[in-house]
């Protein structure tokens, strides 16, 4: 593990801390302001600060320090946590997130002057209000430089206020000169794992020489108390050893040992207490048999109570596993699934399909597969939890206040899907606030709550994850969309389109209804990109819009990317797989549905629309499969950019899950082939790259694509 790895751990931890802090602040906002919630927020910020210091992210450290100071005031109860303060801290958290991002990407730290000032202001106000507790609050309201100094002071000085100028003394003398330090350990110094003898050793190690030992207080043997300190020493330290160096040894010794610096001082006196006389040196190792517990241990913190669920997102135990190891496991499970299917087929051929062991194996394999997939699954809450911030930003830039309703945030889906989901989701939410939800005045005029509502929901439905992003805005204005589409040349003037078709126009490349591209949603990506993103994840996006009542975008995503659903089709003696996400319908055409075009191309008439017929036989080799659409089956597929087409196959044989193996790594990239999979009968089947195939088909005038199966 090198320092980069450790830094990566730190940044993962930052993400977790940021989420924990946000969850805690949200809980505060909702009214849960108990000690543990606030403590959890404090701990989250504190933990980022610790790492920031360790890895040298000064700006991040400075910001977290100020933030933490305020949180510590809140924790102590000297700052009242009102709604305004919670909102300000949420803004501070946003800034902290930017700081973390900047530290991770190595870019410039964000401008935090304004929010820093507000944080400091809040701290100062509290200190002005109650200076009684001021002594207990170090460094509050100080600048970063002062803080660092304070840290260094603490690190170096044992009792800095007691001595005047030993620092100057050491370097001032001649190089060979020595300077003196006097020490007397008291009773407590022998307890708690401290050992005065070790300090003496250390002084010796620095080149110090014991020039005096005060034995006057050593009592008669019978009155000797092993936990008591009876001896005092004077050491002569070499001139080149600095005061700081020596002070470091006694850092944290505190009152357990009196120290005096400089030759004009003497060994500090024994602490006044009824000391019984005895003899011999303090036997430090035995000293702690009955440890003299100094001070009032009552004030020491009790173990923290069980964390409040609101503040602690994951109280369950977890281990970190390298993602690549996990993927190797999941790959292996994929192979297992295939091997099991092959075995089942083989046994079926031997008329042994119904043996008990096979059913058992099948159940076990399914279990393992589900569990392995669950490893990669993460709650979608990690994406949803970023939405409040987005809404705050949008609120400040658009002036529209939007309430957020979230349901189903514990719904789990694949890590990769989650990661790639945040971009389209962000875009959809920006759109909803920017275009969907009206201004407060407009909403009031329409008799709506002036505050808009955005609802996010996620649920698992029929083997897919369905995510719904709904606003209660004005809905999609069909006439405007249509007019725009006509103006952009996407639709013929006067075309009759259904409401659904009009709604779907907003996904067309080059479509944008906003009269001028706003800075919010118009970031150079349109809804077509959103749709492509969703499609890349093997999902679909649909629109439900009611004029005046709002718009909902519904994303249906697969549970995992490792295994897809496919339709197995037959061409001659070859099997091919068509990914099910592309398939719209399949049909057996009547001769009247087909129209010839050019020399050997055909178009299929589907309820008034003409689609090009693409004989898959062209891939599989002409003489193996049928070329007459009426003898085969047409599978109508849909692509994002190239419209629909009808793929001609001999027959549809099955529909099943398959594990994709890329040809790139095992063979080489092949046009119109997305990869390969192994079927239950052990044979390799190619997976059709529908997008590529339809693109090629629509681009060519005649002839078919190259005979690709020759390669397989």
């Amino acid at each position, binding site marked *: 593990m090198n320092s980069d790895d*450790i830094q990566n751990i730190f940044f993962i931890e930052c993400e977790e801390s940021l989420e924990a802090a946000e969850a805690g602040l949200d809980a505060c906002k909702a009214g849960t302001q108990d000690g543990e919630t606030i403590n*959890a927020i404090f701990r989250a910020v504190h*933990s980022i600060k610790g790492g920031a210091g360790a890895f*040298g992210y000064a700006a991040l450290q400075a910001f977290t320090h100020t933030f933490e100071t305020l949180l510590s005031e809140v924790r102590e109860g000297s700052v009242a946590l009102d709604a305004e303060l919670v909102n300000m801290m949420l803004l501070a958290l946003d800034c902290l997130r930017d700081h973390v991002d900047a530290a991770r990407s190595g870019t410039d730290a964000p401008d935090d002057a304004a929010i820093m000032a507000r944080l400091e202001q809040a701290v100062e106000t509290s200190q002005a209000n109650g200076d009684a507790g001021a002594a207990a609050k170090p460094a509050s309201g100080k600048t970063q430089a002062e803080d660092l100094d304070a840290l260094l002071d603490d690190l170096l000085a044992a009792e800095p206020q007691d001595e005047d100028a030993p620092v100057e003394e050491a370097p001032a003398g001649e190089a060979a000169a020595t300077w003196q330090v006097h020490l007397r350990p008291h009773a407590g110094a022998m307890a708690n794992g401290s050992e005065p003898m070790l300090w003496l050793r250390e002084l010796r190690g620095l080149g110090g020489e014991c020039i005096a030992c005060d034995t006057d207080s050593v009592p008669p043997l019978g009155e000797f108390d092993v936990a008591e300190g009876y001896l005092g020493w004077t050491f002569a330290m070499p001139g080149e050893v600095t005061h700081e160096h020596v002070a470091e*040894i006694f850092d*944290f010794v505190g009152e357990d040992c009196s120290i005096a610096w400089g030759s004009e001082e003497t060994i500090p006196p024994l602490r006044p207490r009824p000391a019984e006389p005895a003899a011999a040196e303090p036997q430090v190792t035995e000293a702690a048999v009955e440890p003299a517990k100094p001070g009032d241990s009552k004030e020491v913190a009790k173990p923290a109570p069980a964390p409040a669920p609101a503040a602690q997102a994951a109280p369950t135990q977890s281990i970190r596993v390298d993602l690549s190891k996990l993927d190797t496991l999941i790959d292996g499970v994929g192979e297992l699934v295939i091997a099991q299917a092959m075995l089942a087929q083989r046994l079926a051929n031997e008329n042994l399909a119904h043996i008990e062991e096979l059913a058992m194996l099948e159940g076990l394999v399914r279990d393992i597969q589900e569990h392995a997939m669950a490893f990669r699954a993460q709650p979608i809450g990690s994406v949803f939890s970023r939405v409040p911030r987005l809404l705050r930003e949008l609120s400040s830039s658009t002036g529209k206040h939007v309430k957020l309703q979230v349901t189903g945030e514990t719904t789990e889906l694949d890590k990769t899907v989650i990661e790639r989901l945040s971009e389209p989701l962000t875009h959809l939410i920006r759109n909803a606030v920017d275009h969907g939800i009206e201004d407060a005045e407009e909403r009031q005029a329409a008799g709506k709550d002036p505050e808009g509502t955005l609802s996010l929901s996620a649920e698992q439905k029929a083997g897919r994850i369905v995510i719904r992003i709904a606003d209660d805005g004005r809905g999609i204005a069909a006439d405007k969309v249509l007019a725009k589409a006509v103006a952009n040349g996407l639709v013929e003037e006067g075309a009759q389109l259904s409401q659904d078709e009009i709604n779907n126009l907003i996904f067309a490349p080059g479509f944008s209804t906003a009269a001028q591209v706003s800075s919010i949603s118009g970031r150079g990506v349109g809804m077509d990109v959103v749709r492509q993103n969703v499609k890349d994840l093997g999902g679909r996006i649909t629109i439900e819009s009611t004029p005046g009542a709002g718009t909902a975008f519904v994303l249906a995503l697969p549970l995992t990317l490792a295994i897809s659903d496919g339709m197995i089709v037959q061409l001659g003696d070859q099997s091919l797989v068509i990914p099910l996400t592309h398939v719209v319908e399949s049909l057996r055409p009547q001769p009247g549905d087909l129209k010839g075009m050019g020399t050997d191309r055909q178009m299929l008439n589907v309820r008034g629309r003409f689609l090009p017929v693409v004989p898959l036989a062209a891939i599989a080799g002409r003489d193996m499969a049928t070329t007459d659409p009426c003898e085969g089956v047409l599978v109508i597929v849909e692509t994002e950019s190239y419209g629909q087409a009808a793929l001609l196959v001999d027959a549809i044989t099955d529909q099943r899950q398959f594990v994709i193996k890329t040809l790139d790594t095992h063979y080489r990239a092949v046009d119109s082939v997305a990869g390969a999979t192994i079927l239950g009968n052990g044979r390799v089947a190619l997976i059709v790259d529908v997008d590529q195939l339809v693109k090629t088909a629509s681009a060519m005038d005649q002839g078919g694509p190259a005979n690709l199966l020759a390669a397989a």
Partner: protein
Amino acid sequence: MMTHATRILTVDDSPSMRALLLHALTAQGFHVEQAEDGQAALEWLAMNEVDVVITDINMPRMDGFGLIEHLRGSARHADRPILVLSTESSDEKKQRARNAGATGWIVKPFDADKLASAVRRVTH
């Protein structure tokens, strides 16, 4: 002189801090065990032996103060050297740690050499 490498238990809820400590202390020739909070440290210490404990203060479940108190209250660990490693540096916190029975206090971010010498200082 001990015949084995000095065994250190580090207690910190931050994975990156644990990784840093493991890296720094292992490189210095120490044998390092790690726990993620006071409670986990106590559970580990109930079954295992260690020469030095290095603990953070701010941790969930059981914080550093609680851990030190518990250890000082037990017969086996009453005189175990316990170093506090914390970003905190207030006299109030230090006094609290001292009262609880801490042996030493090191301020984060730590310097690997200084930490190692602090460990050597409290061991034999």
